[in-house]
């Protein structure tokens, strides 16, 4: 590097001394990195053994993946492309209805879960609740709701409530309660208490204090987190149908299990487009709510 573009190289003895210093300074960091890499390598081998990774099978069958992608490509010819597209999307009205159902499931689940999380977040916030046990209880409850995946709730609820989108909504709502309750309570714990004092000093009642001092501080963050969750829930609602809990998932599972190749790609494209549009829309609104800052 030393002799590049008109830079005078250092005298050799000086360079040797400097690079010796550099090597010594980086040796410790290098050893740490190597140790970390060794640990990761050992874990990888272990995980590979447990997860039955078969590189040979993979190499043998990777052709199948491209073949599968090729098979699900829509059969659109050059002679009459419009008719082909129409044939590809033969089930469009039904699929759009199911897609609408999926989005409604995500919406209702987010709304119900958001309301429950809103209520619980105030109980779980350290600066508002004095009782330690109540707070810890609320936190653990939220943790359980958050850790058990929504599909597991859906599996249990399908048996209790019967098949249908209502089950999907309830499962999403419970998971959302856990996820949003945690984020909400963190927001509540970080509010500035001065506006609260100021309002109560200028004659406001408790309700007015909450309305004008607490809500304005937390509402934009709450709305932004709820929108982010809505986006995630649309994705989650798309697969609720795999366990019989409504939405477009059921139709997709049938298509993929019965090798209706064109239907697989048609529904997949619809799902991807929907998620895309909702992503973009919520990102716009969130940026307006909290300013252009990621997450």
């Amino acid at each position: 590097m030393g002799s590049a573009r008109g830079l005078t190289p250092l005298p050799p003895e000086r360079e040797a001394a400097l690079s010796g210093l550099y090597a010594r300074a980086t040796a410790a960091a290098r050893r740490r990195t190597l140790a970390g890499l060794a640990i990761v390598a050992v874990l990888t081998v272990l995980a590979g053994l447990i997860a039955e990774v078969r590189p040979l099978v993979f190499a043998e069958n990777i052709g199948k993946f491209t073949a599968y992608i090729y098979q699900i490509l829509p059969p659109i010819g050059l002679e009459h492309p419009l008719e082909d597209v129409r044939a590809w999307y033969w089930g469009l009205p039904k699929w759009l209805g199911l897609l609408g159902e999926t989005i409604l499931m995500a919406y209702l689940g987010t709304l119900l879960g958001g309301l429950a999380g809103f209520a619980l977040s105030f109980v779980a916030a350290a600066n508002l609740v004095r009782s330690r046990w109540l707070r810890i209880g609320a936190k653990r409850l939220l943790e359980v709701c958050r850790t058990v995946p929504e599909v597991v709730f859906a599996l249990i609820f399908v048996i209790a409530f019967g098949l249908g989108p209502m089950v999907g909504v309830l499962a999403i709502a419970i998971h959302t309660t856990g996820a949003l309750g945690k984020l909400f309570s963190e927001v509540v714990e970080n509010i500035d208490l001065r506006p609260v004092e100021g309002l109560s000093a200028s004659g406001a009642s408790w309700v007015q204090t909450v309305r004008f001092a607490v809500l304005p501080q937390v509402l934009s963050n709450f709305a932004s987190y709820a929108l982010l969750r809505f986006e995630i829930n649309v994705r989650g609602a798309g697969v609720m149908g795999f366990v019989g809990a409504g939405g477009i998932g059921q139709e997709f599972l049938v298509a993929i299990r019965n090798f209706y190749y064109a239907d697989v790609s048609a529904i997949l494209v619809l799902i991807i487009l929907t998620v895309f549009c909702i992503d973009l829309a919520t990102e716009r609104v969130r940026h307006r709510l909290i300013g252009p800052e990621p997450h």
Partner: protein
Amino acid sequence: MSARPEALRAAARADLDRLRARYPAQFRIDWAARARLAGLLGLLLGLAALGYWRLDFSMARIFHGLGRLGSFAVLMLPPSPEGQFWTFLHALGETLGIAFLGTLAAAILAFPVAFLAARNVVPNPFAHFAVRRGLDVMRSVDVLIWALIWINVVGLGPFAGALAIACSDFGALGKLFSEAIETCDRKPGEGVVASGGSSLHRIRFGLIPAVLPVLASQVLYFFESNTRSATIIGIVGAGGIGQYLTELIRVLELKQVAFLVLMILVTVAAIDWVSTRLRRGLIGPAAR
């Protein structure tokens, strides 16, 4: 602290009319804002009502189901593996293996691609637009759908699960990585170029040291969340503890189900704890 505000409040109350007269702007009602708020609330409620009607909600069903859930809760006690402890433990290990391999593969794939998607490395707007949209497509397909696709390729089993997680996280990590690279300070890179480094040197010595801790912390965070998603991937037959969970729920072996859920909760909590520690070590106490 309570005496002074009380006195101030009383004074403000007594003086309210004159305050209103003195600061009309502060007391004026903003009808336009209220109409917007009412419209928004109406929209939210209207959509909720539409959902309630379209998704066949009924209070009777909910109450009936709640009763059954109550009886399930009784059946869950006490949680016990009923002699299958080692099977479950192996399945849990498989789940962790799936999450680990999937996250690692996703991170390794996403690392080079993220540089292509970063505006400050590849200045060509078309290139990074295309890479970004590609990542978005990978990301918007759910893990379970990826699992179904990979099962067609490598057969049933945990390997398909690991590949599924790798695919969907490749998109998510690629996006996050490229955002981290874009927000990076450009001065070290300029310094490297000024002292004669090539653009590869700029990336190696000016960008990577700055972004690596952030990326590593994001990968750890994804590993955490992937242990959760790896528990459900067995539902479609892609290995891990989800397989047992599904079957046992279907046949209402609820004691074993409760035991499995407890195992998952403990494992996830343990991994959360370890990875929070590691992330603190990587990027300082700011990590949550």
